[in-house]
C-alpha cells in the first residue's frame, strides 16, 4: 500500500510564531488606526507606540519563524515536494503583489484617460467643464488642479533615469549571483550579490533625494498636490517600500551565504529573494514609462 517513491511531507508540530504574528498585526492595525485618527484630530496618543511595538514584534516573529524554517531545512527535514510548496507559495505571493500595484496603475490610467479629460469637458461632459470648472484645462501631468492647486511635474531625465539604470543593472547582477550559486562559485556569488545590494541601496538613496527635491520650495510637488502628486507618491512610494523589503531580503541572503548556506540544488530562499527583486524591477519599468515618461 505504501508508495515506494514516497517522501514524507514535513508537517511541523505546534508553533507559537503564527499567533505572535497575529497579535503583532493587531497591534500594527490598531496602533496605526489610533495614530492616524489622533493625527487628524491633532491629538497625541499611544497609537504610534503601539504601532512601533507591533512592528518590532512582527520582526521578532519573522526572525524566529524563519530561523525555525532554516533549521528544519538544514537538518534535512524537507523533501522536494516541500520545496515546491515554498516555490509555488512565493510565486502566488508575488502575483498578489502584482495585483496590489495593478490597483494603483488602474487608478492612474483611469485618472489620465477618463477623469481629468472629463473634468475639462471631454466626451459628453461639456456641461461639467463649463459649469463646475470653467477655468480648468485638462493636461497631464496635472500641474493645475480644478480647484487651482499648482505644482510641477517630475521629469524623467536625471535621477529617475539614473535609478532606472541602477535597478536594471541590479537585476542583471542578481541573475549573475544566481548563476554563480548554481556553478557553486562562492566568491563570485558573494561579489555579485553584494553588488546587487549596493545598487539597491543606491536606488533607495536617490529615491529619497528625489522626494526631497519634490518637496522643495522650487518644485512644490506634495502628496496632496492633486491627482498627479497622489499617484506619483503612492506609486513610487509603494514601489520604494517594496525595494526596501527586497533589499532586506537580499541582505539576509548575503549573510546566509557568508555563513555557508545554500547549495547549487537547494537554495529556495535565495531564489525567492531574487524573484522578488526581479518583480520590483519590472514594476519600476512600468512605473518609469507611465509615471515619468508618458
Amino acid at each position, binding site marked *: 500500500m505504501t508508495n515506494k517513491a514516497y517522501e514524507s*511531507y514535513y508537517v*511541523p508540530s505546534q508553533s507559537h510564531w*503564527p499567533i505572535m504574528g497575529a497579535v503583532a498585526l493587531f497591534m500594527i492595525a490598531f496602533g496605526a488606526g489610533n495614530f492616524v485618527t489622533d*493625527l487628524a484630530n491633532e491629538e497625541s496618543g499611544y497609537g504610534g507606540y503601539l504601532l512601533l511595538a507591533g512592528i518590532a514584534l512582527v520582526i521578532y516573529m519573522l526572525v524566529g519563524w524563519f530561523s525555525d524554517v532554516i533549521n528544519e531545512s538544514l537538518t534535512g527535514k524537507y523533501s522536494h515536494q516541500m520545496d515546491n510548496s515554498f516555490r509555488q507559495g512565493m510565486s502566488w505571493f508575488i502575483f498578489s503583489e502584482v495585483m496590489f500595484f495593478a490597483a494603483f496603475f488602474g*487608478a492612474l490610467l483611469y485618472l489620465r484617460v477618463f477623469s481629468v479629460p472629463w473634468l475639462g469637458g471631454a466626451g459628453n461632459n461639456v456641461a461639467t467643464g463649463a459649469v463646475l470648472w470653467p477655468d480648468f484645462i485638462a493636461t497631464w501631468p496635472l500641474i493645475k488642479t480644478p480647484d487651482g492647486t499648482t505644482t510641477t511635474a517630475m521629469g524623467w531625465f536625471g535621477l529617475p533615469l539614473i535609478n532606472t539604470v541602477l535597478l536594471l543593472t541590479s537585476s542583471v547582477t542578481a541573475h549573475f549571483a544566481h548563476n554563480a550559486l548554481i556553478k557553486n562559485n562562492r566568491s563570485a556569488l558573494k561579489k555579485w550579490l553584494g553588488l546587487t545590494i549596493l545598487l539597491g541601496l543606491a536606488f533607495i538613496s536617490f529615491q529619497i533625494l528625489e522626494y526631497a527635491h519634490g518637496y522643495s520650495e522650487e518644485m512644490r510637488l506634495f502628496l496632496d498636490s*492633486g491627482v498627479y502628486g*497622489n499617484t506619483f507618491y503612492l506609486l513610487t512610494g509603494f514601489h520604494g517600500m517594496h525595494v526596501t523589503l527586497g533589499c532586506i531580503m537580499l541582505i539576509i541572503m548575503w549573510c546566509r551565504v557568508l555563513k555557508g548556506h545554500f547549495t547549487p540544488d537547494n537554495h529556495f530562499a535565495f531564489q525567492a529573494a531574487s524573484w522578488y527583486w526581479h518583480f520590483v524591477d519590472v514594476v519600476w519599468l512600468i512605473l518609469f514609462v507611465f509615471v515619468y515618461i508618458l
Partner: protein
Amino acid sequence: MTTDVIEQDSHDEHHVEHKMTGIKRWLYTTNHKDIGTLYLWFSFIMFLTGGAMAMVIRAELFQPGLQLVEPDFFNQLTTVHGLIMVFGAIMPAFTGFANWMIPMMIGAPDMALPRMNNWSFWILPFAFIILLSTFFMDSGAPNFGWTFYAPLSTTYSNGSTAFFVFAIHIMGISSIMGAINIVVTIMNMRAPGMTYMKMPLFVWTFFITAYLLIAVMPVLAGLVTMLLTDTYFGTSFFNAAGGGDPVMFQHIFWFFGHPEVYIMILPAFGIVSTTIPTFSRKRLFGYSSMVYATSSIALLSFIVWAHHMFTTGMPLFGELFFMYCTMLIAVPTGVKVFNWVATMWRGSLSFETPMLFSIAFVILFTIGGFSGLMLAMTPVDFQYHDTYFVVAHFHYVLVTGSLFSIYAGAYYWLPKWTGHMYNDTLSKWHFWCSLISVNLLFFPMHFLGLAGMPRRIPDYALQFADFNKWVSIGGFAFGLSQLIFLVVVIKCIRGGEKAAAKPWEGAVGLEWTVASPAPYHTFSTPPSQKDIDNIEPQGIK
C-alpha cells in the same frame, strides 16, 4: 480498507507528536482539522453577531417612523452587518470547509503550509475586534454601507474610518495567505494518481475561488489605502476638485467586489455538487462541464463589475458592454443548475437534511439568479437600483445560496467531524423553519423594491408598512431558527448515534475511507490507488 490507513498514521514516526490540550492546542495548532474547526466556529459566532444586528434593523423597520435607533446608528448597523456577514461569516465558513476537507479529499497529510494556515486564521478574530471596537468609540462605527462608497467614506465619514481601513487590510492579508495555502495544497499535495480531472468538484471550486481571492484581495487593499490617504492625508483620488473622480472608487471597488461575490458562491456550488450526487445515488451529471462552467464564471467575473454602476452616468458603450457580459454569466450558471437537476433526474433520491438544504439551494439560488438577470438589464436597472429589490436579490444568493450550502455541507460532514450523527428531528426542524421564514423574510422585499422602497433607510413611507411587517416577522423567525442549528451541533459534538466511516450510502470520496471522527492526522502516507480509482467518476458507477 479504512483501518490500515489509520494504523499507519499512528505508526508514522513523523507524527508521534501529540496534540496539546487546552487553549495552547488551538493557539499553536498547525493541524488542518483544528484550524478548520476554528474557522467554522469563528464564522458561526460572527454570523450570530451580524444576525443580531440584522434583527435590530428589522425591529426598527417593523413599522414606519423612528422607533428604536437613531438613523446614524441604523447606518452603522447596516454597514457592519454587511461587512461581518461577507468577511466574517460566509468567507471564513468556506475557508473552514476548505481546511477540513481539501487535504482529506486529495489524500494529503495536511495543508501545504500549516504554520501560515494558523496565522491566516488568527488574524481574523483580531481584525473583527478592531472593526467591532469602533462601536464603542466616540465617533461610532463606520456608517457608509459595506461598499464604503466615496465620498461617504472620505469627506463625510465619521472618525473611525482609519480603524475600518486597517481592519480590512489585515483581513485581506489573512484571506490572501489562506488562498495561497489552498492553491499550493491543491497543486502540490494531491496524492499520486489524483489527477486534476479526478478531483472532487468541491476541490475544484475552492481551487478557482482561491485564485479569485489572490487576484482581487490586493485590489481591495489598494483601494482602502487610497481611501485612507483621501480621508486623512489630503489626496484627491475620489475628489473632482483635485482631478479625481468618486466614480473611480466604484470602479475599483467593484473590480474587487464582483469577483468577491463569486468567491462567496463558487464554494457553495462545490458543496451541493457533492451532496446532490450522494443523495441521488448517481454520479454528478456533466462533471467536466461543471469544471469549465466554474472556470468561465470566474473569468467572466472580472469583466462585469460595472453592472453595479449603471446609474452613475457611464458612457453608453460601457453600459452595453457590461450588460451583455453580465448576461453571459447566465450561461455557465445555467449549465450548473441544469446539471444539478439532471443529476437528480431518475436518481434514487432520499431526503436527509443535507439534501433538503441542497434542493432548497438549487431552487432558491436560481430565484436569486433570475432577479440578478433582471438587474443586469441596464434600462430596467435604473428602476431597481438601490431599492429593496437589490436587497432581495443578494440575500437570495447569499442566504438561501451560500448559507444554505454551508448548512448542507455542515450536516453532510458533521458525522465525519464529530463521529456522531446529528439529531435528525431537530435538523429537520431547523431546515423547515429556516426555509419558511427565509422566504417570508426576503420574498416580499422584491415587491417593496419594485414599488420603490429605497435600501439603507431607517424609515419609510406608509404604503410599505404591510410588507415590512411581514419581512420583519420572517426575519425574527429566521434568526431564531438558526439557534436550532447551534443546539444540533452542540448535541452532535457531545454525543449521539455513532457514525460509521461512511454514513451516507451514496457518498464517494477519500474522506469516507477514514474513520469517523476523522483521526487527528490522515493520509500521512498516500491513500491506495484503489481508493482513488473508486471516487472517479464522481459517484456510484
